[in-house]
């Protein structure tokens, strides 16, 4: 075995680390450890001169291990691995000791912090002894994409990919494209027709040779990993025969949308019992027919719109459904233009007019004399029938917040602004494509701010309202973003797989399949012929669950071997 020559590089991080840790003492202790050939400190190790110092020392001192005591590896591990590569060293022979986030930033006692920094550095030095050079792998990227859901998100993603001349399989469960948007009349705030928005998309999808449209179809199963998925899609024909088709895709866009809240769950509102209490989607139907009227065919004089039905309260969903406020304003406009003599009461909790042009739309709605009445989100208006002597059919009683009065609002027609919720079978979809859901059932993104359309499973993207309530512009933006992410991968042609993953030693594996069940990323396949499990490196996230669980000790976590972990623990305790 070659002689171990470790270079230890300690970063001051300006005063971030140096102020709370005596780095000379850390340096002295590190230099005295066995195998350490060079120990240096520098003001900013991540700067160009800092990185060059590491590369130069590797070349000139023939270092074969590098320890950088600095910030979190999440911040700069990539940087220092790159510095090692530049110096001619395998990047996995580098280890970081986090003496900033885990030490100087969280301690005020300089002496104790210095001792802790020494321990962390010593742990890294002991660990790096046992590091092995690793190579990253590459896999082929299949240029075809599976898009699940034929609403505005799925249509947009499919078109974006197909316009770049790549195969798209667009799978839609129902017999028609358009999703929830196809149930809507006009859109807020510009009052464009939803039909017009969709028709253009339908035509383009129908004409595009790169799109294989699969209506009446559902994803049955999905196996494989990014770049190499095998999907089975089941299609129902008109005569109820079922056909299964296997398709190979590199990426998947999940755009399964939402379902509306069931207004019958709120008994106070009497939906389903009172004839003229309708949901927003039922009202959209009236608008699409061009007839706004009560059940017995009268023109309503008083129309009341109740916001946040199922949204923003303790009892049902705590979140805001984001589109109902503007949709309610749109109804006020449509009601007033259909019958200028009608009175519209808009009974709201808070007016969320966050989007472009929304505040102006809110003001215009005020200008057409919509009566805005505010109530507390944890209270609820109560609807009852009016007396025959009243000039209205129903009365809505509520504590009005802005006037602090208990009021009753006349109504001939009540529109309930039902919120969005995750589809009943979203759990099934999540399991099929191996992604997570949040507490409300929405699909979870890889990072809510920096990576909103990717998921924790490589190659699976989410777009539109399956991830959370959102309006049409946001949905379309997400669909295009997902397509752009996929196009970037297709353009690269190959996928790079990190060298850190788990490996099964065939000779020790008993084929118990415990790891298969345990793997949260479905990254372990069982080979029936050999009766052995095998890790798919591209899908493995190196979490180590299988390593810990394997009763035969047959699984090795590369870069997290027993020797490495034990040495690290010894180093901390030394």
């Amino acid at each position, binding site marked *: 075995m070659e002689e171990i020559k470790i270079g230890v590089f300690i970063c001051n991080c300006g005063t971030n680390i140096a102020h709370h840790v005596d780095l000379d003492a850390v340096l002295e202790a590190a230099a005295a450890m066995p195998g350490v050939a060079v120990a240096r400190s520098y003001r900013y190790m991540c700067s160009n001169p800092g990185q060059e110092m590491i590369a130069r020392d590797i070349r000139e001192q023939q270092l074969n291990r590098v320890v950088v005591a600095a910030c979190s590896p999440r911040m700069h591990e990539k940087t220092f691995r790159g510095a090692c590569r530049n110096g001619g060293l395998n990047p996995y022979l580098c280890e970081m000791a986090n003496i900033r986030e885990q030490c100087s930033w969280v301690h005020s006692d300089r002496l104790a912090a210095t001792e802790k920094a020494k321990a962390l550095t010593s742990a890294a030095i002991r660990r790096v002894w046992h590091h092995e050079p690793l190579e990253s792998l590459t896999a082929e990227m299949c240029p075809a994409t599976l898009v699940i859901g034929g609403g505005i998100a799925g249509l947009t993603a499919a078109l974006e990919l197909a316009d770049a001349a790549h195969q798209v399989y667009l799978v839609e469960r129902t017999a028609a494209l358009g999703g929830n948007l196809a149930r809507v009349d006009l859109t807020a705030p510009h009052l464009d027709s939803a039909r017009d928005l969709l028709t253009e998309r339908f035509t383009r999808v129908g004409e595009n040779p790169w799109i294989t449209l699969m209506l009446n179809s559902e994803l049955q199963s999905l196996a494989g990993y990014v770049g190499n998925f095998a999907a089975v899609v089941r299609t129902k024909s008109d005569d109820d025969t079922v056909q299964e088709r296997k398709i190979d895709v590199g990426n998947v866009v999940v755009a399964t949308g939402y379902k509306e809240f069931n207004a019958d769950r709120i008994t106070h509102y009497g939906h389903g019992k009172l004839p003229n209490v309708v949901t927003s989607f039922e009202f959209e139907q009236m608008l699409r027919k061009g007839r706004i009227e009560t059940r017995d065919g009268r023109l309503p004089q008083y129309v009341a719109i109740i916001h946040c039905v199922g949204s923003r309260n303790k009892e049902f969903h705590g979140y805001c459904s984001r589109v109902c406020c503007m949709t309610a304003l749109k109804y006020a406009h449509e009601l007033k233009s259909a019958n200028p003599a009608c*009175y519209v009461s808009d009974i709201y909790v808070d*007016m969320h007019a966050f989007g472009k042009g929304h505040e102006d739309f809110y003001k215009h709605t*005020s200008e057409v004399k919509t009566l*805005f009445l505010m109530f507390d989100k944890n209270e609820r208006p109560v609807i009852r029938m009016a007396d025959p002597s009243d000039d209205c059919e129903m009365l809505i009683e509520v504590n009005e917040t802005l006037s602090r009065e208990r009021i*009753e609002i006349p109504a001939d027609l009540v529109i309930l602004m039902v919120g969005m919720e995750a589809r009943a079978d979203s759990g099934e979809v999540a399991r099929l494509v191996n992604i997570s859901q949040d507490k409300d059932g929405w699909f979870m993104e890889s990072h809510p701010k920096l990576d909103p359309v990717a998921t924790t499973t490589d190659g699976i993207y989410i777009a539109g309202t399956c991830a959370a309530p959102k309006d049409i512009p946001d949905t379309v933006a997400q669909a295009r973003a997902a397509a752009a992410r996929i196009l970037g991968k297709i353009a690269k042609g190959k996928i790079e797989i990190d060298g850190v993953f788990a490996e099964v030693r065939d000779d020790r594996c008993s084929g118990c399949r415990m790891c298969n069940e345990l793997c949260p990323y479905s990254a372990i396949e069982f080979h029936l012929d050999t009766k052995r499990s095998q890790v798919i490196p591209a899908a493995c996230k190196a979490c180590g669950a299988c390593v810990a669980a394997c009763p035969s000790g047959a699984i090795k976590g590369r870069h997290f071997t027993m020797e490495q972990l034990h040495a690290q623990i010894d180093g901390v305790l030394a």
Partner: protein
Amino acid sequence: MAIRVNPKLINELETYGAADVQNCYHCGNCSATCPFSKEPFVIPRRSMRHLQMGLEAKLKGTLEPWLCYYCGECSQQCPRGAEPGETMMSLRRWLTSRYDLTGVARLFYRSWKAELVALILVSLATMTAFLVMGFGIGHGSLGVYAGAGALFPDHLVHLLDLGLAALLASVLLTNAFRMWWFTTGSNRNLHISLWLYVKNVFLLPYHFLTQARYRQCEKKLPWLNHLAIFLSWVTMEVLVIVLLERLHSAETDWAVHAFGYLATIGLLGGTAYALLGRARKSETHYKHTHPTDLMFLILIAGAALTGIVQHASYRWLGLDSVANIAYLIHMMFVIPLLAVQIPFSKLSHLAYRPLAMYLAAVHADALTSRQAGAAETEPVRLAA
């Protein structure tokens, strides 16, 4: 008990000059900027809200519109262009029509043509009455202005003045009583002792004569102008009702006439300022002009100008017949101004304003003493 919302009321108020009330989204900037919005009054936001919701009973019982002097700060600060200042103005008109038992005020505010017709009719009636009085009853001559044989003898005119004053006072008193009943008397939540009424009664003449509250607005010029018109007008009323004989004596009585000159300057200057301001829309409160505002100003200016002609013809030029004609026209401005605008229109605010200041102080005192009483009887609560 829930109060019924009435979305139609806002349409009714539009006929009184309200505009864009529905634009208000209750940010509260208006009340933050209003110098008068202090507990227990929320000016102008509460009235804006009650009007949007059509809570007619609440509006009928509020003093708040009368506590606003329309400095216009609220309308300038409003981010939604909801014109709260003008809303308060139109609410004052609406309240005037509510206080008036006859329904005439309601007709006049909603139709300026009706008011104009009424003014013309009263004007013509005045002319007829004066001509009958002068030529028919008094057998006077057009060429004699004062003394024996005068066309319009002082004692007859004086009697007419007193009669009119008594009539107007009784109408105004009825309306003022109704105002008290709507805002205070019928309010069961208010417990007002007689002492509170007595204690604050000095506020009535104080606010009537000084309009001290108006002075608290940030801009002082509108208050000065208003005070000038008002004091001049009161001076004139005193002169013509109480001191008419001395005013019409053959010798110039400077102890009386000096006030007459001052009042004339005040009336002309004040109305000219207001008319020019409204023409140029120079201040926020001049931006919206209701026809009744214009009629009011024109009547005052007309009365002042004809008064000058009459005075000059008689005193300086010795043209008695011109003076008599000028006097007749003068009365054709003055009587409609008093008989139409005091009971049924804009001028009635000379009674409602001071009464509102007085009642507001009584309300505030009643609430303070009630809170003080509550604090004595209730156990001390610790902050949560």
